[in-house]
């Protein structure tokens, strides 16, 4: 009995953001009249899903004690490339998805290799790469080009038995990522490297390999997120990804993953992405101006971080 209570207490603390999400949803149902319409709920899911997917990848990187700021512009690059390639033709769907994931994985692998070879702080390295990717996008095109294949649009906006397809994609990726992190050797190795790299190395873990792996996952998740964003926009908009990287980091940290690495959880990350999406949706429905929205978002991030402070982390 006592043990059960303790387990519940521990769990509640770890999953604090999930409780925040539930409360926010209930609050929005009661207080905001237009919230509970099928169309609006679908909107919240579509808008949050891309961020959620991107934040899953960022969770891997941050768990490993690293950070990846290049994912926003990488997402933008993939949106542009895949729309330009697909040109709206349904038969190119498989090839376009393969390309999206391939470009993401390749870029992640380059980031990982540079991180291992150059030993620059990942914040500086990935900021440099952000700038490079931004330059590459705008050298490629300075206006929207191409058209997303119809399947992308279905993945972003469509429904399967009443459930938004984007939610299914997100749920599938979240479950996979959670299993990888909690049930596989590589998942434990990621946390070990993030917790104490030197100890992990001495315990025989291939730390370079693990770090490379997390950057590749981050790149692939940018590929998945790009598919959803391209589906929503319908065209290759060169600025599609700008600012996404910081939102992803905010979602990861709101989800309780410490920036120092070593401990955290993807389910909470995804819940935090939904909290962010829900906040902007509610503010939109209440017809609050975008300017005030930015301010409120900043204040909520600060407030949530202060409330949801990691307990065991040294300051």
């Amino acid at each position, binding site marked *: 009995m006592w043990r059960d209570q303790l387990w519940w207490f521990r769990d509640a603390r770890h999953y604090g953001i999930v409780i925040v999400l539930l409360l926010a949803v209930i609050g929005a149902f009661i207080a905001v009249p237009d919230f509970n319409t099928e169309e609006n709920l679908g909107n919240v899911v579509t808008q949050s899903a891309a961020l959620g997917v991107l934040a899953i990848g960022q969770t891997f990187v941050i768990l490993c004690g690293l950070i990846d700021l290049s994912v926003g512009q990488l997402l933008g690059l993939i949106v542009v490339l895949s729309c330009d390639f697909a040109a709206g033709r349904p038969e190119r769907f498989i090839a376009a998805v393969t390309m999206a994931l391939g470009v993401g994985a390749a870029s992640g692998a380059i980031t990982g290799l540079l991180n291992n070879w150059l030993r620059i702080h990942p914040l500086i390295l990935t900021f440099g790469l952000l700038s490079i990717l931004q*330059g590459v996008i705008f050298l490629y095109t300075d206006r929207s080009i191409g058209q997303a294949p119809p399947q992308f649009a279905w993945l972003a906006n469509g429904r399967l038995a009443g459930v938004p397809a984007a939610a299914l994609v997100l749920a599938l990726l979240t479950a996979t990522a959670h299993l990888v992190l909690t049930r596989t050797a590589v998942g434990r190795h990621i946390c070990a490297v993030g917790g104490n790299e030197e100890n992990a190395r001495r315990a025989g873990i291939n730390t370079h390999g693990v770090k490379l792996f997390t950057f590749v996952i981050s790149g692939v998740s940018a590929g998945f997120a790009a598919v959803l964003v391209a589906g929503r926009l319908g065209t290759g908009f060169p600025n599609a990804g700008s600012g996404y990287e910081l939102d992803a980091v905010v979602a990861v940290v709101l989800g309780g993953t410490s920036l120092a690495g070593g401990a955290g959880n993807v389910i909470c990350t995804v819940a935090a992405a939904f909290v962010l999406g829900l906040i902007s949706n509610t503010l939109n429905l209440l017809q609050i101006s975008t300017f005030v929205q930015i301010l409120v978002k900043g204040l909520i991030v600060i407030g949530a971080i202060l409330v949801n402070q990691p307990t065991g982390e040294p300051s």
Partner: protein
Amino acid sequence: MTGALRITRSTITATIERSAIWIVLLALVLAGTMLSDAFLRPVYLGNVVRQLSPAGIAAIGVTFVMVLGGIDLSVGAVISFAAVICAVQMNGETGNIPWALGATLLAGAVVGLANGVLVAMSRASPFILTLGSSLAVYGLTQIYSGGTARGVITPEFRDFFNYRLGGMLPVLALTFLLTAVVGGLALRCSRYGRSLYLIGSNPRAARISGLPIARITLVTYSLSGLLAGFGGIALLARSGVSSTFSGRGLEFDVLAAVVLGGTTFEGGTGGVGGTVAGILVLFVAFNMANMAGLNYNAQLIIKGAIIVASSAAYNYLKRRE
């Protein structure tokens, strides 16, 4: 005796660490001279320093914060905020300039103070706290300006800051250099400056030896906000336009410059001298790309490559020596 020896050794290491980034800078300047004869002309160099002064002034404040072991990602937002406040308060009247400058610096310092309170009173990471406050400040900027370029600056304001002393050194560049010298002296020679190094390298020892950590944290973040506000004034003087997003993304340029200069994320090391070299490396590289006739997009690629390559070169030199 051992204490004295240790100080000497750490001073030597610090000197070597500082010189690594100057070697990188020297290499860049040599490459620049090969690219164009105009490169070493005083007017041109004065202009480069004028260009970098907004980011440079803010970088000095961020250096203080990072020596303390913190980080300040709100400086880009504060620079935009300050530029808008300054332009609106000036409102096209020369007589308003002192009030406008004072109000702007005060606003910057208040944002910095708020950051300091958040960081000192909580155990959450300053990275995410200042990221949140940068969002809040962007929102404030937008609300204050109504989303468009607002406010009128007077010609005298621009003329003063862009006046070239002796025909070459713009007042703006001189302002940056003076701020760097004062900042460098404060960090190296004052009791406050040395306490930053102690807190940054060993917070627990600093607490046990009775340093008022919370108060020093408040002062340091306020200083960073104040200097970012000053950077905003410099940006307004340089560009003449109070766009609401003028400083967007600048926080990472500033951060890259500070880290290039040898100040680490862990705190306790580095200094203003390195930061000056770091920001020079970034802007000299950007100018070289410009001189080579590359367009803005190619310049972005060069900028990224330079940040990555010079950090790598810097690490390599540091490990060699």
